[in-house]
């Protein structure tokens, strides 16, 4: 009998990647999605095409689903599922927590924030809430050709999925690992992947690139991303004593996946919500601060941070960043909006090199 899995978020990870981990031979898919257009399409078609890039080729699968709920419709059915996966984005995650108070169903949180699963566990009292890391890039869209065939088409890499071994009975094509191993994977994901991924996106946005691989085609952007990765590697090695072999393997893999022209990874998706990424402990400011605290000067990460300050995307929930960066002097922007203090090394480093760095990244447009 197939296991019933309820997946919150029918986006990149939820729809695009998880069915490759939990294969249709053994699992039935139920989704919860707030986007009405996607929900209606899923409910009317009951299936969609998903493509995995393997060695420069696509492997196609058509996944069938049982139902896609509107948020709230699923509440009375929760006990009928074998387990729940959540991939809705950190900002939406908090709205879901109350749904699970008093439950003990296994819940895997595939969010880009390791603290969220602990928070959910604490609030709900559910000890079966665990953290999962989808080490993969999945686009939330596809090429025009694929979309013409099926508007729900989605493309994913052949990634790896790491999950807390507390729920290893759930099966699937993934690695259930200990908390300490998960922590190393998370640090690599958070900094080597997340930091440089969004730097590539913000720089790409400046030159008008649509997809991440377009951004990486620029030699100058590639160099900045590679430089940022080197800074992160040094920091992870010095601060967390993570082995260099692993860091080298991970960085190489990331540079290659960012350049994957089969993925159609939209810059608008990767660069969305810049204020979240610019939070003090997050992938940009947080990574740069950790580098400085470890004796590594984050020259390239700072270029990425400045590119994030310059992010302009109509419709993004943080689109108003442009009004703030346009109107405030950089030291005011850093202290009022980003929350850096004037005596902090990162504050000084950004302010002292502001004109030079801003010119450099704005000149990328003229490349």
């Amino acid at each position, binding site marked *: 009998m197939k296991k019933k899995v309820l997946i919150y978020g029918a986006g990149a990870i939820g729809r695009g990647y998880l069915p490759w981990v939990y294969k249709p031979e053994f699992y039935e898919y139920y989704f919860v999605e707030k986007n009405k257009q996607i929900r209606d399409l899923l409910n009317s078609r009951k299936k969609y095409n998903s493509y995995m890039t393997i060695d420069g080729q696509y492997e196609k699968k058509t996944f069938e689903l049982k139902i896609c709920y509107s948020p709230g419709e699923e509440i009375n059915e929760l006990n009928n599922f074998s387990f729940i996966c959540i991939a809705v984005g950190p900002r939406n995650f908090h709205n879901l927590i109350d749904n699970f108070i008093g439950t003990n169903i296994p819940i895997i949180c595939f969010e880009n924030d390791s603290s969220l699963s602990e928070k959910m566990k604490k609030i709900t009292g559910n000890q079966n809430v665990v953290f999962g890391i989808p080490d993969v890039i999945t686009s939330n869209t596809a090429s025009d050709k694929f979309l013409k065939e099926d508007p729900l088409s989605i493309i994913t890499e052949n990634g790896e999925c790491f999950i807390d071994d507390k729920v290893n009975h759930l099966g699937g094509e993934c690695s259930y690992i200990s908390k300490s191993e998960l922590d190393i994977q998370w640090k690599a994901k958070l900094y080597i992947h997340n930091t440089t991924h969004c730097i590539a996106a913000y720089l790409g946005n400046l030159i008008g690139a649509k997809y991440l691989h377009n951004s990486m085609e620029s030699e100058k952007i590639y160099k900045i991303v590679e430089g940022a990765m080197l800074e992160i590697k040094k920091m992870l090695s010095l601060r967390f004593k993570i082995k260099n072999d692993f860091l080298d393997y991970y960085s190489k893999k990331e540079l290659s996946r960012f350049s994957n022209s089969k993925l159609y990874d939209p810059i608008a998706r990767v660069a969305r919500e810049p*204020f979240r990424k*610019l939070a003090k402990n997050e992938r940009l400011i947080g990574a740069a601060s950790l580098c400085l605290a470890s004796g590594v000067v984050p020259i390239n990460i700072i270029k990425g941070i400045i590119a994030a300050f310059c992010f302009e995307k109509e419709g993004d*929930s*943080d689109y*108003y*960043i442009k*009004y*703030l960066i*346009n*109107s*405030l002097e950089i030291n*005011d922007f850093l*202290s*009022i*909006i*980003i*929350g850096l203090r004037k005596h902090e090394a990162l504050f000084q480093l950004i302010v002292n090199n502001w004109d030079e760095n801003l010119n450099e990244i704005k000149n990328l447009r003229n490349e």
Partner: protein
Amino acid sequence: MNNSEILEVAIKASVEAGKILMQNFEKNNSSFNIKESLRDISTEIDTMAEDTIIKILKKFDDEITIYTEEQGLVNDKSKNKYWIIDALDGTVNYINKIPFFCVSIAFVKDDKVETSAIFVPYFNDLYFAARGIGSFKNHQALKVGDCNFSDSLFAVSFSGKNHEPEMRKKEFELLGEVNDSSRGCLRTGSAALNLALLAEGSFDGSWGKANKYWDIAAGLLIAELAGNKLKKKMISKDNFLCSFIISKPSILKEITNKVQSKLKLF
């Protein structure tokens, strides 16, 4: 000239004026003048900050009228649009070294506040809003939720003008009544700050009788676009006096009934 350009200049002017306030906050040498009442005073710092704002606004567009608290009508050029500014709202707090003071700047077009910014320099907090864009504090979008009246915290803004004793008595009765039937009712000494705090959900409702419009214009927009419901009435266009009640939607009816039963604002 669109709302986003106006917003950018409002933000810039409010922060620059805030710097002047902070540079002088710890100094104890500010002289002040008493205006309409013992609480209605101005300092030389008010004027310095105001001059800074005027300079920035005029540089942006010299064809727009500016109304200020201290200098009155400046640059009388446009009829249907104007800036209305209070370079230091909470002057009594300021001279008493209480950090509840702010800069308040609003842009009004066809009698409607379109864009505004409030900067609270001591706390380094910037509130801003524009129609079609939203309401924000620093990097966060503001959106208030709902609440019950008994769990609500209110803020009241008294007019700086001297009222007739009977009306003042009613205002204090109302304050006491709301204070005893809710979490409380505060008078912070800055109407603009009351409204900024309402926008971020720290306060749940606020009202003011015959407040100066430069004190409240910016804050009313920020609070309203954050999801609060507003009732207001311009009492005197010439003197820029305005009465208002604003709160989270769920308690507007109740607070309105209480305020109206005592003060008949509308």
